[in-house]
């Protein structure tokens, strides 16, 4: 029972990271029709930004303060990087979806290579508050504390995104844009500002996933972005392209499936996720047309 509980919480923690990446992907796709391959690069930039600042802040304040400060910088760097990518690379290719995808592909290759060139292939570590490395006993299971943070972060982002989309003017424009972009433009609203905004939001969420993955896997390395991105793709397809709630449900399912199968059948959890995707596609191809934010 305690093992099951541990697997469940760990699976939810993993799912939380998938959600942080997938929500941005899904939002960007829903509004702009862009498959953002560079989303993994946003994650990498956020994680390395955090690591870099943390390594330069030696001796200032407590570990907790240093970590929070560097994580904040990492998030801002990820968000700004994403907004710049939209402004400089995506916007000039407006409505040319295939070229936009290809540009993000090139960007993801170049970013990972650059990070490898500057900081090497080795895994990097950053100091995090000791509490995150300890465990909490729940129902007989010793749960690593960082899992709670992952889950809480994902729930907050989900609630925040939902509230933002529902109650703010920009949220309204984004929802309307997902529904019918041409009509929103015809009403005289500049949708392009919303484009930059969703990229920035997506970049922030991905950078947050980067910071958290540095704790979850207890290291930061150049390839992490791409490997998490692939699972985020699976999540987005299962959950329905463009649907935030769908992504949330799918990331929980994928994270849990991966953990359970990994434990009960000697490490084929990753393959089971691809199998799950195949089954979903065979059973319900209709989900893919889902386009509600």
């Amino acid at each position, binding site marked *: 029972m305690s093992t099951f509980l541990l697997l469940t919480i760990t699976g939810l923690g993993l799912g939380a990271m998938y959600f942080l990446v997938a929500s941005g992907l899904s939002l960007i*796709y*829903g509004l*702009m*029709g862009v*498959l953002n391959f560079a989303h993994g690069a946003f994650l990498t930039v956020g994680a390395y930004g955090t690591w870099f600042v943390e390594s330069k802040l030696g001796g200032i304040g407590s570990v907790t303060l240093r970590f929070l400060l560097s994580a904040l910088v990492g998030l801002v760097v990820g968000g700004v990087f994403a907004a710049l990518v939209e402004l400089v*690379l995506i916007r*000039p*290719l407006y*409505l*040319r*979806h*295939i*070229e936009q*995808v*290809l*540009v993000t*592909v*090139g*960007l*993801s*290759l*170049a*970013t*990972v*290579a*650059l990070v*490898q*060139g*500057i900081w090497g292939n080795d895994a990097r570590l950053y100091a995090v508050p000791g509490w995150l490395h300890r465990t909490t006993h729940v129902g007989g299971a010793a749960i690593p504390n960082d899992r709670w943070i992952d889950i809480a972060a994902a729930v907050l982002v989900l609630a925040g995104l939902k509230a933002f989309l529902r109650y703010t003017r920009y949220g309204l424009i984004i929802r309307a844009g997902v529904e*019918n*972009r*041409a*009509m929103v433009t015809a009403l005289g609203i500049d949708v392009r500002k919303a484009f930059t905004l969703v990229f920035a939001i997506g970049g922030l969420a991905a950078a947050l996933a980067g910071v958290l993955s540095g704790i979850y896997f207890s290291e930061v390395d150049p390839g992490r972005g*791409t490997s998490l991105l*692939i699972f985020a*793709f*699976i999540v*987005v*397809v299962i959950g329905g*392209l*463009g649907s935030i709630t769908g992504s949330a449900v799918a990331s929980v399912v994928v994270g849990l499936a991966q953990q359970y199968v990994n434990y009960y059948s000697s*490490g*084929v959890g*990753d*393959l089971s996720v*691809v*199998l799950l*995707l*195949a089954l979903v*596609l*065979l059973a319900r*191809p209709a989900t*893919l*047309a889902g*386009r509600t934010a």
Partner: protein
Amino acid sequence: MTRQRLGAAVGVAIVFVLAFVPKLGFGLGALLPGALSSPGTLQLLAVCLVFGGVALSYDLLFGFTGLLSFGHALYFAVGVYVSDIAVTRWGWSFATACLMTAAVGLVVPAVIGWISLRTSGIAFAMVTLAFAQAGQILVQKNPRGWTGGDDGLGYDYQHVPAAFVGVFNTKNLYWLALGYAVVVFLVVAWAVRSSPGHVWQAIRENERRVEVLGIPTRRYKLLAFVLGSLLATAGGVVYMLCVNGANPSITTPDFTLMLLVMVVLGGTGTLWGPVIGGALYWFADQRLIAVGGSHAVQSLPGVLRTPLSQPLFVLGVLFILVVFFLPGGIAGLGARGRAGRRGLRRLEAAFRSSPGLGGEGA
């Protein structure tokens, strides 16, 4: 018609010249690792030719049918790993191993294509990537010690035809690779001019309209998918011989992206373009490592040195520039009129008219 004949004559002449490369005793300065006839150069050129062919097999899907697959590396890897495992782990003869590889190379894309083609456009890209990822995981899991995991799997030379083994036989490998590239070129050239080939290009231009005509588009797309994959599988076998076995780097998502870069660089939806793009890309990738380690680059200040010593950074940036400023790729440079230069933009329709895809408000 005369233009076509002229093209064919030039093509035959180029293949003829290429066939004589192993007989040429001179080098090309810093461009090549040694004289043209040296084993090092021949092996590099052989792999360039293999990637030229594999890139063209990918263009059959992407450029001619409008299918953006992110999983083409998987079918190449099937060729590399199945043939290698059959000769090395199971001790089969090379001919039997090739038959087995061909069978797997037909069944795997047929099944995966059948499932993936339930989606289209961007979702298809994501799903094919997921399947390719499953292939990579499988290789890394190293079931029964067959794939060798991260270490790769060197082939057992006793079960490989003697003509392809050893440094002195590198010229045979080169000719084999040249033959492979020529065969892929001829097959793709024939296929895109055949009746299914016309349907593929019609699907690329406007899938819904083809559907309305009563043509089962999914079946035709599956045909293109299986044919392209089978050609890539064959390339995998040749590659396995060229590099003496299998290495897991060809199963990564980066490898599929590399094929995409090769095609776009050369010219999407053309025959010559991807072959040139594939060969040039690999050549640049390999030689940039040498240039990156050279004295000239190493003596630059760090701000310039670090990016320049990373081939993938240079090629990634180059790729972005090509997408922006040269959508027709290398093939678009020489093409007359706007049609030739459209390249990538010709694919736009395939992504706008696909059912269940965003951008319909455009």
